[in-house]
C-alpha cells in the first residue's frame, strides 16, 4: 500500500487500521470481562472433571491436571437428577402452553373484544406483577391439602398458572393491540366465529411473541423454588431446585463431586439458553422497552 504514494488513500487506510485495532483492543478487554463474568461456571467445570487427588494437590482455580468423569457418575447416582429432570420437565411442558394459552385468550379479549370493566380487569391483572408469592403459599398449601395434592407435582400447576398470568397478559395485550382491526373485522364479515378468528388468525400472526413469552415462562417455571419447597417433600417428587438443595447437603467435603452435581443440574438450562437466547433477549427488551 505504501508503494502507491497517494496521501489521501494512505490517510484513509491508516484511519481504518487505527479503527480496527481500537475495535480489537476493545474486544480483548470485553472478552476478559466476559471470561471473568463466566469464571464461577468455568471453575465449576474445571473442578468437576478433576480427580480428588488433583483437587487436593492443586486446588480449584488451577487448570485440571487430570480428566475424569467419575465425579459425574457419583453425583448422578446420589443426586437423583434424572427424576428431578422428569418432574421439572413435566410441569414445565404442561404449565407453559396452558398458561400462555389462557393468558392469550384474556389478552385478546382485553385488546380486541368488547368487554366491560376492561380497565379494572387489566389493572387487577397487572397488580399481580407486584405480588410476592409468599402471600399465597399458606392458603394454597391448605387448599391443596384438602384435595390431597400435597407432595404431588401437579399441585404446583394452579399457583404457577396464576402467578405466571400477569407477565404473560402484559406482553400479549401489548402485542394484540397492534394487530389492525381490519384483519379481525374482515374475518367477522366472512362469518368466522370469534374463537376461529382467534385460533386461525390471531395466534398464527402472534407466533414470535408467543414463543418469546413461552421461553421466558419456561425458564421461570423450571427454576421456581418457594412453592415447590412448600408443597413437595418426598425424594421422588423433587423438582430440579429441590434436588440441588438436597444434593448440596450431602456433598460437603467431596468438592469435585459437588461441582459435578451442580453442573448436571444446570446443564439443561445452559443448553436451552444457548439455543433460545435470541428469544429471551428479544422478549425482555420488547416487553420492557415498549412499556
Amino acid at each position, binding site marked *: 500500500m505504501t508503494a502507491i504514494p497517494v496521501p489521501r488513500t494512505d490517510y484513509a487506510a491508516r484511519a481504518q487500521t487505527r479503527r480496527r485495532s481500537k475495535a480489537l483492543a*476493545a474486544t480483548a478487554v470485553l472478552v476478559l470481562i466476559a471470561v471473568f463474568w*463466566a469464571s464461577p461456571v468455568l471453575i465449576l467445570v474445571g473442578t468437576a472433571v478433576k480427580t480428588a487427588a488433583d483437587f487436593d494437590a492443586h486446588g480449584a482455580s488451577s487448570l485440571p491436571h487430570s480428566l475424569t468423569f467419575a465425579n459425574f457418575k457419583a453425583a448422578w447416582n446420589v443426586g437423583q437428577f434424572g427424576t428431578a429432570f422428569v418432574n421439572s420437565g413435566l410441569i414445565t411442558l404442561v404449565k407453559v402452553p396452558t398458561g400462555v394459552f389462557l393468558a392469550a385468550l384474556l389478552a385478546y379479549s382485553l385488546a380486541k373484544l*368488547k*368487554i366491560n370493566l376492561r380497565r379494572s*380487569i387489566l389493572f387487577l391483572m397487572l397488580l399481580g406483577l407486584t405480588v410476592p408469592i409468599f402471600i399465597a403459599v399458606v392458603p394454597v398449601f391448605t387448599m391443596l391439602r384438602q384435595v390431597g395434592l400435597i407432595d404431588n407435582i401437579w399441585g404446583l400447576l394452579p399457583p404457577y398458572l396464576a*402467578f405466571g398470568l400477569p407477565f404473560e397478559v402484559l406482553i400479549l395485550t401489548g402485542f394484540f393491540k397492534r394487530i389492525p382491526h381490519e384483519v379481525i373485522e374482515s374475518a367477522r364479515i366472512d362469518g368466522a366465529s370469534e374463537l376461529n378468528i382467534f385460533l386461525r388468525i390471531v395466534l398464527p400472526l402472534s407466533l414470535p411473541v408467543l414463543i418469546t413469552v413461552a421461553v421466558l415462562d419456561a425458564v421461570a417455571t423450571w427454576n421456581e423454588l418457594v412453592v415447590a419447597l412448600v408443597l413437595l417433600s418426598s425424594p421422588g417428587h423433587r423438582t430440579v431446585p429441590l434436588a440441588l438443595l438436597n444434593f448440596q447437603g450431602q456433598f460437603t467435603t467431596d*468438592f469435585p463431586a459437588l461441582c459435578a452435581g451442580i453442573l448436571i443440574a444446570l446443564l439443561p438450562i445452559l443448553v436451552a439458553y444457548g439455543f433460545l*437466547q435470541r428469544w429471551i433477549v428479544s422478549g425482555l427488551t420488547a416487553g420492557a422497552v415498549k412499556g
Partner: protein
Amino acid sequence: MIADTMKTAPRTSPGLPRQLRASRLARNGSLAGWAFAAPALIVYLAFLVYPALTSLSLSFTSWNGISPAKTYVGFQNYVNLVHDSVVQTAARNNLIWALVTIAVPMALGLALAMAVNTRVYLRSLIRTVLYMPAVLPLVGVGTIWGWLYQPAGVINNLLTDVGLGSVTHAWLGDSTTAIWAITVPAIWVRTGFPMLLYLAALQGIPAEYYEAARTDGASAWQRFRHITFPSLRATHYIVLALSLIDTAKVFDLVYAMTDGGPGNSTQVMGTWMYFNVFQSYNFGYGTAIAVVITLVAVIVGIPYVRSQARQLV
C-alpha cells in the same frame, strides 16, 4: 417484521361504514369478551386473589395450621411483629438488599452496555455470556457461590495468592459479612437484565447527536452527561420499577446459601415468614409477615402498574 407492518397499517378501515362496525361489535357483544377472559380470570381469582385475601384474614388469627379452630387475635400478630428482633434484622436486610442489588446492577449494566455498544467484535457472544447467570436457577447460583465462599474455598485462596491473606474470612459464617456476601451473587445474576435494556436503548440514540456534540467540542463526559444519560430516562424508570418489584421477593439465594443464619443474621422477610409457618407452625404470625411484605411491594409497584395499564387500554 409482522409487528412492523402492523404498526404502519392504517388504523381505520376505509371500506366499512362506522355504523356497521359498531352494530356488529354490539351484536357479538361482550359475551365473547367475557368467555375469552373467564378461564384466566377464574384461575387468577382462585389461586392468587383468593389466597391473598385468605392470608390477610389468617393474619388476624393464632392458627397453627392443623387445629380446626382459628382463634381470632385481632392485631396481636402485627404488634408482635413490631417487637420481633428478627423482623427488625429482616427489614434491615431487605433494605440492604434493595439498595445493593438495584444500584450496583444498574450502574454495572449501564457501563457494560456502553462498552458492548462500541465498535467490537463478538458482540452477541459477549452479551450472551454476560446475561447467562440470569437464567440459572437461583438455588444453583447459591450453591456455586456457597462453595466459592467456603473458608478454604476459591475466593479465600485467590485472596491469599494475591497477597491479601489477611483479608480472608468465613464470609458466610460471620454475621457481619454474611448478608453482604450474598448480595454478590445477586449482583452477578441481576446485572444482565439492565445491560440488555440499556444496550437496546443505546442503539436507539441517533449517531448524529454525538457527531454534533463532537463538532461542538463536547468532551466524552459531557456527551455522556447531556446525551447518553438523558436519552436513557425511560429505561432507567423501567429497570428501577421492575427491580423494586423483584426485590421484595428475595428468598432463594438466602435460603440456599445461609438458611437465614448464622444466628438469624441473614433472614429476610420471605425466609422469616417461611420459617415461622413451615418450621414453627405459626401460620397466623407467618401470614402477617407475608401481608406486610406484600403491602410494601404492591404500594411501591402501583405507579409502574398504572403506567403500564394506561398504555394498554
